[in-house]
């Protein structure tokens, strides 16, 4: 799997293969959503998939993130030849995603939503957290710092304490992106990231 890094025109380094999809086919009853798809994703690469509506873009992302099980084919992360994983296992492999029809925790504040992105980085035990012992406390501070960094980066500081349910669509999209970014993923899957955004937001 060793691959010599090459550098693109805008200075990104393309490294080794992070994820590969092999001959994947997904059917819903008689409807074939994905037929025999294979491709690789390399480190540092930006891959866009453009297809008409109903072509199976979202279905494919759902296969990658473990929400759908393909009838045929394999999805490998970092060359691990393991069977298909469940969504939470995929997330633990360092793959974060956003959804086409935004899936945020509507009743929680923006900050809490972003903090949930750090759940996989949590290492303090149940008892640590229940009694708020040293480790849990230190961890919380570190996670909070990272969350604030991302919140600053996406310029959503002013709505930190607002429940997500009250936000307009464009801001929700940004919060979802923040939640995905804060996990420091090795692959970031964005499903229709620009859908429903105005010119200004797209430029941002």
């Amino acid at each position: 799997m060793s691959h010599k890094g090459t550098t693109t025109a805008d200075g990104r380094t393309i490294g080794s293969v992070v994820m590969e999809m092999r001959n994947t086919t997904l059917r819903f009853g008689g409807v074939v959503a994905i037929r025999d798809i294979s491709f690789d994703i390399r480190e540092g690469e930006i891959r866009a998939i453009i297809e008409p509506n109903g072509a199976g873009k979202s279905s494919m992302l759902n296969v990658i993130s473990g929400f759908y099980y393909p009838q045929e084919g394999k999805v490998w992360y970092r060359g691990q030849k393991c069977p298909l994983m469940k969504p939470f296992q995929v997330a633990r492999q360092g793959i974060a995603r956003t959804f086409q029809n935004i899936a945020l925790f509507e009743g929680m504040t923006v900050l809490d939503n972003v903090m949930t992105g750090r759940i996989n980085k949590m290492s303090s035990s149940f008892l640590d957290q229940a009694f708020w012992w040293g480790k849990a406390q230190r961890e919380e501070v570190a996670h909070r710092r990272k969350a604030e960094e991302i919140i600053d980066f996406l310029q959503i500081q002013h709505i930190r304490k607002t429940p997500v349910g009250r936000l307009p669509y464009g801001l929700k999209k940004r919060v979802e992106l923040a939640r995905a970014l804060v996990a420091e993923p090795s692959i970031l899957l964005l499903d229709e990231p620009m859908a429903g955004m105005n010119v200004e937001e797209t430029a941002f």
Partner: protein
Amino acid sequence: MYALVALGFVLIFKASGIFNYAQGVMALFAAMTLVGIQQGRVPFGHLINEIFVTDVHYFGWKVPTVFAILLTVIVMIGFAFFVQHFIFRHLIGQEPIILFMATIGLACFLEGVSDLMWGSEIRNLDVGLPQGINDAIDQATFQIFGYGFFIDNLDISAAIIAAILVGGLVAYTQYTMQGRAMRAVADDHQAALSVGIKLDHVWILVWALAGIVALVAGIMWGAKSGVQFSLSLIALKALPVLMLGGFTSIPGAIVGGLIIGVGEALFEFTVGPLIGGATENWFAYVLALVFLVFRPQGLFGEKIIERV
């Protein structure tokens, strides 16, 4: 006291989106288990005696209260694993109404099991909490108002324990990662999975916490009126408390409990004699009905905001 049972409801509801009908029966089960362990009873004694034609009822030892409580906590955690493994694991992503039906089934089942396990006689539960009228308050209020207030020591300790429990739980669900994971799961299963939360673990945690809250409620009620079947009916009284306080609010459960408890007693005392008494049976429900009409989300419930 009502607040304690209501708390269990709110906790599970907030953390998993399930309205847990079995909370009252869980309190009963926890209290019975505690008494059973304390007195060194043989679980499923009747059943064993029937099948093997023996006559064993007691192991012949008494377990100190602290140990008995610890053991009961372990039993309740085991129960959480059982519930998750056999029931709710298979219902992930189902409609809330289906989950609610499942908890009704669970309530019936647990009622039967606790009967079978520990027998159905009324038991006294003594965990060493102070009982009887608090003389200090009686004296003090007599000097100020000219009347003495009779407040049971047990009620005072219940209030203190409830306060500690609530403080702890609020801090836990609001400020720790696991608390956040719990709230995330309640909000949206799919989104929770996508950030890497394992639903199984969170639900076990939620049920274990509900079990512990049920145990505390069971201890308090058991100490007050004996451990008996009617303990599980108290859960029904928690429903008006919740409607009053709001289904999603922990402070709401407490305030609602106080309003219902005090209102009930006052209403019986003032209006009761005029209409023939026995108002305690329905007062809470009528109050809840009135609340549903004028403020469906309760006193402290989350305002229902929907952006269309």
